C-alpha cells in the first residue's frame, strides 16, 4: 500500500490533470459527492474511478498473482471463449445489493440490474503447461450497468500486480512473453488494451453497448474456476442470483467447448468458436452487418456463413488474393481461414481486429478441419446444397 500511496503522490505532483482525477481516490477526498470510496456501493452513473481497487471488487491478489474476488463478487467461466494472445482470464460479476438477480434470456445476453459490474481480467501466465502458473496482470476491463446503457472502462495493472489504473485511451504495442501449452516460447510486442471508444466495435452487437459472454449458451456448463459447480446456471438459480431459468436444462441453449471433443461434433465446436470469437461483429445488426457475413450459431444458410461468398470490402491484403470467404473442402483457398492465419503484421487482414496479435494455432486447426469437413457429404445433411461445385472454380 505504501508503494501505491507513493505512486499516487508522485502522480499528483507531476500532472495537474491526473491529479484532479486522482483526487477522487486519495483517502482524504472521500466525501458525500464521490462514490469512488472503496466500498461495494459504487454509483454506476459516477465517472469511472481512477483505481480499480476503489470499486472494492477484489481483496488484493493471491500468491500466484490473481485478484481475489471480494464478498459479493462471483466468478463465471464460458464454455468457449475469446482468444487474446494466450492470456489467461478471470471473469467476475457483482450484482448491486438489494437490486435483485440477473434475468435469464434464451438467446440474448441476460438482463442485469442497474449497478451491476462485470469484469474481465487479462493476465500473462509464465508457463501455460502449469495450471497454477504465476501470472503477470495486464488489464481489467469493466462493464458497468448504468440506467440507460452499459458503460465501459479499461484499467491497466501496475508492474507489481498491486492495483490497476483507469486508462480510457488504452495502450497499443504492449510486449510480453510466455511459454505456451505446448512448451513453446511465445512473445508479442503488439498486444492492445482497447480504448474506451473501441470497446463498442465488439460490444455493440445490437447497437447499444452490451455484454457478450453472459448468454445462456456460453454459461450453460460446469465452472472451470470451481470444479464443485457442475452447472453454473442451476448453481446461480439456487443461490437466487438468476431468475427465469427453465426448469429443464435441456431447454437451455448450450455451446460446445471448442477444444473438447466430448462436448460436441466438429461442426458444433467450430460454430461455438466462431460464435464467441467473431459473431459479436459478424451478425445482422452490428456496424459490420453490411459485409453480409453472419457467424451466429443459429445461422444455417451456407452463404451467410461465407460459403462461396465474395468479400465486400477487403483488398488484396485482406483476402490473401483469394476469392471466397469459404470454399467447402478447401481451407487453403478460404479467406476466412486466411484471415485467422495472419498475425498483427497484416493489420488489414487480421480477424478479429483488436483482440489478438498472434495466431491462435489450435483454433486455426479447428476451423481448417471444419472447412475441410464442409466439403463432405456429411456436411450436406447439415447445410443443404453446400457443395464445392457451388463456387465457380478459378
Amino acid at each position, binding site marked *: 500500500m505504501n508503494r501505491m500511496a507513493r505512486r499516487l503522490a508522485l502522480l499528483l505532483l507531476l500532472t495537474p490533470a491526473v491529479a484532479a482525477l486522482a483526487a477522487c481516490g486519495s483517502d482524504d477526498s472521500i466525501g458525500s459527492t464521490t462514490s469512488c470510496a472503496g466500498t461495494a456501493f459504487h454509483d454506476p452513473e459516477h465517472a469511472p474511478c481512477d483505481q480499480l481497487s476503489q470499486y472494492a471488487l477484489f481483496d488484493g491478489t493471491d500468491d500466484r498473482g490473481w485478484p481475489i474476488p471480494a464478498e459479493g463478487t462471483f466468478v463465471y467461466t464460458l464454455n468457449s471463449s475469446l482468444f487474446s494472445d494466450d492470456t489467461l482470464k478471470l471473469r467476475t460479476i457483482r450484482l448491486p445489493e438489494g437490486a435483485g438477480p440477473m434475468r435469464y434470456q434464451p438467446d440474448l445476453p441476460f438482463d442485469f440490474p442497474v449497478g451491476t459490474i462485470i469484469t474481465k481480467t487479462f493476465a500473462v501466465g509464465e508457463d501455460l503447461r502449469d495450471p497454477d502458473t504465476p501470472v503477470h496482470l495486464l488489464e481489467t476491463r469493466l462493464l458497468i450497468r448504468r440506467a440507460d446503457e452499459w458503460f465501459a472502462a479499461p484499467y491497466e495493472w501496475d508492474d507489481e500486480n498491486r492495483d490497476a489504473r483507469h486508462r480510457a485511451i488504452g495502450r497499443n504495442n504492449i510486449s510480453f512473453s510466455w511459454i505456451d501449452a505446448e512448451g513453446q516460447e511465445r512473445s508479442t510486442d503488439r498486444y492492445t488494451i482497447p480504448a474506451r*471508444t473501441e470497446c463498442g466495435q465488439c460490444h455493440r452487437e445490437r*447497437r447499444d453497448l452490451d455484454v457478450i459472454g453472459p448468454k445462456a449458451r456460453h454459461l450453460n456448463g460446469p465452472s472451470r474456476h470451481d470444479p464443485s459447480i457442475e452447472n453454473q446456471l442451476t448453481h446461480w438459480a439456487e443461490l437466487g442470483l438468476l431468475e427465469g431459468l427453465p426448469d429443464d436444462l435441456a431447454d437451455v441453449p448450450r455451446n460446445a467447448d471448442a477444444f473438447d471433443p466430448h462436448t460436441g461434433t466438429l461442426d458444433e465446436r467450430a460454430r461455438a468458436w466462431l460464435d464467441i470469437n467473431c459473431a459479436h461483429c459478424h451478425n445482422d445488426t452490428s*456496424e459490420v*452487418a453490411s459485409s453480409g457475413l453472419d457467424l451466429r450459431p443459429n445461422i444455417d444458410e451456407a452463404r451467410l456463413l461465407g460459403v462461396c461468398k465474395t468479400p*465486400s470490402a477487403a*483488398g488484396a491484403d485482406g483476402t490473401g488474393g483469394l476469392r471466397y470467404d469459404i470454399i467447402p473442402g478447401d481451407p487453403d483457398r478460404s479467406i476466412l481461414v486466411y484471415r485467422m492465419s495472419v498475425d498483427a503484421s497484416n493489420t488489414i487482414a487480421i480477424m478479429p481486429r483488436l483482440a489478438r496479435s498472434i495466431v491462435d494455432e489450435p483454433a486455426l486447426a479447428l476451423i481448417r478441419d471444419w472447412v475441410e469437413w464442409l466439403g463432405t457429404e456429411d456436411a450436406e445433411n447439415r447445410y443443404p446444397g453446400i457443395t464445392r461445385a457451388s463456387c*465457380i472454380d478459378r
Partner: protein
Amino acid sequence: MVDHPFRLIRAGLLACIALPLALALPACGDDDDDVDGGATELPLNPNDHHHEACADMDRRVVPVTTDMDTDAIFQLFVDAEPGDIIHFEAGRWQMERELSLDAPCVVLKGAGTTETILDWEGTTSGKGIFVGTGADHFTAEDFTILNTFDNGLEVRGTEGIIMRRLHVEWTGDAASSNGRYAVYPVECRNLLMEHNVARRASDAGIYVGQCHNAVIRWNVAEENVSGIQVENTLGAEVYENLSINNTLGFLVHDLPNLATTNGLDTRVYRNAVIANNFQNFANDFDLAFNVPSGTGMIVLARDNVEIFDNVFEDNRSVNFAAVNYLLLNPDFDMGSNPDFDVYPRRIHLYDNTFSGGGDNPDIGRDLGFFLAAIRLQQPAGLDRIPDIVFDNIAPADSTGDNPLQFCIGDDYDGHVLNLNMDLEALIAEDIATLSANLDNEIAPYRCSLDPVPETPMLETVGPGEGTRPDHNR
C-alpha cells in the same frame, strides 16, 4: 449546346486543385471559413447545415492545441460528451494512432484545410479517424488528413453524418499501399458530404456505401483509382462534383452479398467528369482493379439512376458506360447469389455534354482491351469509342428491344455503342463472338423515364432515435 453555370464552378475548382496542396486550398476551403465572426459564440458557421437533432444541446468547445501529443488528443475524443465541439487550432500534428469516437452530436472542427493538418505518416496500422456506432449526428469539417495507413476517415453504422471542407490525401506516390478510401462512411443514414477534396486513395476518394439518403456535392476527387463512388445506397443526390484525372471518375454501383443488396434512386447531375486517365494503382483484388484507366463514369448493376447536365471530357477509354456486374467481375456466380440483381435497370441519361475521349482505351484491363479491339475494327465507321456504351445484357426471359429500360434523351445526337453481349460469351471471354454483335443503333434507347425522386438533405431524426438501414437481403 447549353453553357452550364457549372462550368464556372468547375473552372474555380480546377484552379484550386491544379496547384500543390500548400498553396492551393485557401481559395477553396476558406471562403466560408470566417466562422468566429458570426452572432454565435460557437465556432460553427451559421450558414452551414447542421444536425437539427443536436441544435438544442449545451455545447462545450474543447480546444486542441499544438502542444498536445496524440495521446492527449485521443483523450479528448475518448472523453467527448454528447455535443462537444473538438476544436483544432491552426497547426500540424504528427499522429501516432487511430483516433476513435463514440459519442453523439460531436463536431470535429479545424481552422481550415491548409491551417489544420493531421498527418499519420509512419503509422503501420489503423485508420486516421474511426467513428463507430453510438456517434450519431457526427460532423467533421475544415481540416486535412494525410497519409493514413488504412482509410482516412471511416464512419460506420451511424445516423446523420456531415463531412465538409475536409482534405484527405496520400502525399507519396500513387501506390496500392495507400489507404483504400479517403472518406468512408458505410452503413449509415442521412449523410451530407460537401466541399471535400480526396487525392490518391488506392480505391475510392469520395465514397459512400450501404447508406440511406446521401447528398454528395461540391467535392473534388483527383488521382484516386475511383474518384467518386456510390455503392449499394438507397437514395443519393450527387451533384456539382469534379472528378478529374482519376482512373475512373464516377462509379455508381451495387455489389453482391452486402446487407443493403440493391441500391436505388440515384440522381447524378451537373458534375464534371474530366480526363480520368490516371494509372490504375488499386490492389489487384479490389473491384476497381478491373477498371481501365480513362473511364469517365460507370453505372454497374445499379437501378433507377438519372444522369443529366453533366460534362464528360477526354476520358480516354470511355466517357460513360452502363454495364452488368459481370463485366467487371466475370467470375461472379449468379446461381448462388439469387438475390443480387446484376443488371443496371432504368438508367436515364439526358442533357449531358460530351467531348473528346474514347480514343485510346487502356488495354491493360479486359474491358479496355475489348474497347480497344472494337475501336480498331471501327464498326460503322466509328473512329473512337462512342460517348455512351451499354452492354445490353438482359435476363434470358426478357422481351422487347430495351428490356432494361436504358433511356437516352432526344438531346443526344452521338452514337451508342451497344455491346449486345451475351453472358455466356462474356464468361468465356470469347472476344470474337462478343464483337460480332456490336451495333450503334440508338433508336431502341430513345425513351424517357419518370423522374427519380429527390433525396432529402439530412432528414431530421432525434438523438438516439436513429434506425439502422433496412437489411433487405
